[in-house]
């Protein structure tokens, strides 16, 4: 089990990775959109936690590229962002994300619970 965390805030990266690693999950980290696209190809994660506001390439633009790449079409993705505008939500929906979570509204364990919920379903 390998989860790609795409997040530029180091404190958040540490928080989510700590929680996931404590549950025995392997964690790959990308701090910008471009790296995320590359890592999807090279690291082949099973699940992606994707932020939107990112340096170089935004989360949604990165996801578009990921969806176009060979292994990225069906990759389960949860958007984890503090943006809560309808615009981003709709865009994310069109890119077949599993969920759109507002970071502030969810504790790390709640996020993990969502990941588990979606992995169980698939």
């Amino acid at each position: 089990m390998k989860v790609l965390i795409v997040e530029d805030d180091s404190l958040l990266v540490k928080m989510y990775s700590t929680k996931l690693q404590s549950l025995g999950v392997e964690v790959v980290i990308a701090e910008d959109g471009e790296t995320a696209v590359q890592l999807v190809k090279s690291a082949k994660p099973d699940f992606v936690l994707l932020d939107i506001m990112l340096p170089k390439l935004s989360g949604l633009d990165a996801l578009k590229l990921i969806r176009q790449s060979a292994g990225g079409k069906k990759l389960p993705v949860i958007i984890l962002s503090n943006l809560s505008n309808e615009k981003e939500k709709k865009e994310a929906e069109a890119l077949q994300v599993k969920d759109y979570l507002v970071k502030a509204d969810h504790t790390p364990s709640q996020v993990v619970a969502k990941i588990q919920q979606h992995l169980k379903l698939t």
Partner: protein
Amino acid sequence: MDWKNFLVLVSIIFNFILALVIHFRGGRKKAHLAFEFTILGILGWCVTMFFYRMSSPESAVFWARWLYFFPTFIPTGFVVFGLLFPNHKLNKKIFVLIVLANLIMAWLTLQPGAVVIGVRFSLGEKIINFGWAYYYGYIIYIPVLFSLSYLVLFKKYRRESAIIRQQILYIILGLTGSSTIGITTNLILPTFGFFELNWLGQVTLFIWVGSVTYAIVKHRLMDIRLVVARTVAWALLVFILEVFYTFLILSLTRVFYGGGMNSWQIVLNGALTLITAVTFHPLRRLLERITDSIFFKDRYDTEDFLKAMGRILGSTLEIELLANKLLTRLLTEMKLSHACLVSLKGHKIEHIFSQNCQQGAVSYHQIRSILTSAQRPLIFDELPEGKRKNLLRQLDIGFVAPLRVKDKEMGILVLGHKLSGDIYFDQDIQVLSILTSEVAVAIQNALSYEEIKKFSNTLKLEVDKATLKIKNTNKRLKELSDLKDEFVSVASHEMRTPMTIIKGYLSMLLEGDAGKLSPKAKDLISDAFEGATRMIRLVNNMLNVSRIESGRISVNLQDVQLEKICEEVVDEFRIEAREHGLKLKFETLGTNEPLPKVRVDIDRIREVLVNLVANAIKFTPHGHIFVRCQVKDDLLLTEIEDTGVGIPKEARKKLFRKFSQASLRDAQERKGSGLGLYICQLMINEFGGKIWFNSKVGKGTTFFFVLPTVKSR
């Protein structure tokens, strides 16, 4: 025929002409009729005197009676004239009384043995024997009626204005002159048996005729100037024809027949008469034109003039154009030296329009001051000497009239003198009086129009100015509003990240990620976690309000199993409730089956429930909080019941308003933005539902909201 009789004859002719003149005037007015009647009486008197003096002993009595018959009408005519002049109004009682006395006296004069008994001849002079009616009636009747006519005319003289006074004065002068001599020679002297001077009465009538004629020409008594002119033309024509005709007849008779008349002469006369008749009309026309050019240099057609003026007045509402057209027309038609129109606004002079006028505004103020007392126009020639006349003389003004509309002063019309040097005739004054009232109305209209135009311009400017201001303000407000929304959006995003970090790590601590915590540490960290959660809710609410108010909120409607959301929210609050020592429970009532779905935005309805449960926890020190769902008819009813402090009565009405808090003290104690319930109501309404509450202070509060079920839609 002796020379005395000849003089009487001349007197007859002059009186006849005067009678004609008065008659041709038309006699439409009552005073003119009375005057005509008087002259006819005088004429009758003259004619009978002529015949009486020529009469044989056989017919003398007959003529003598008629000689005393006619004079009875003369004083009657005068009295009636005096009563009527110049207003043509009559006291009917006095009129009937005088006419009755006149008729009785006239009837008596024709009765044998009443006034005139007989006529005897003595030394070639006729002596009349008078009867009882003469002594007891006639010699009283005549002087009394004459006195009465003096009295009436004198009264009128004192009351009337200058020009009428002049007219009355000439009439009185003529009347005095001829009547005193007439009464002396025909009444007083005969009473004492002295008849020799009785012809003098008729002859002195020249005084009368002369003075009246003078009054006519100089002071347009009864407006018979025109007739005088015509009569003069006519008299001249008759005279010339007479001379021409006589000369022709006499000379031709002498040349062809050497005197004496025969049938040829009669035929010739006929032919000559024919020539006369043929040449009469063109000659008359020529002479009329000549006399017209002398008497009426400045004549104009009243009707045409007024029509033209009416057209000018009706043609425009621009006061300047109106005034200039009007004045130009007045100057050319009436041939005046100058004319000026002043329009007033209250006591101020608004405009001065002038043609050849020299006066300044000060003069017009002076004119205005003398006009305020005058209701009618002031005419220089008619004014008595005094301050007003002096002012008009000084300013070279012939006519000045106030322009009034219903007693409101609109302006002044000032006219100079006629270029011909003539006075203003009755025709002019009548025309001008019609004109002034029309001009006054026209000026009022023009001024109103001007005012409306000015007002509408000012209004337009003001409106434009205000509109621009509003536009700018709106623009600025929109900028500010956009800025605020952007700020709230960015700020909330930026605030959410650190809050996520705090909340996340605290949750991990509580979950034992850093090892087992002591109960004391767990308690403290729970409080910190609650604080962080509350902070996040506040940010969410602020963000929502900002979205709602900028109209940027879009709802993503889905068919939702509401009881599941309720369960999730209650689960989220379980830790917080336990921390507060509260019992938190969710249940569905009435059925074990899944409840019907509702069509809502899942994130928003979650926010509503979060707000309501958070509120319940906040305001409940101890006891329980129950969240229940049940179906009521076609609606899904959700209730959140607590055993809290309750909502004070004074706060209930305002509870759903923005930034409302139960009370300031509560706000300080409990902390909260006052946005939660506002958002709840907006959302529930948006989903077609309704939210309300029941509350008892000290016992608790229950919030209810209903949403239409999907089935019922």
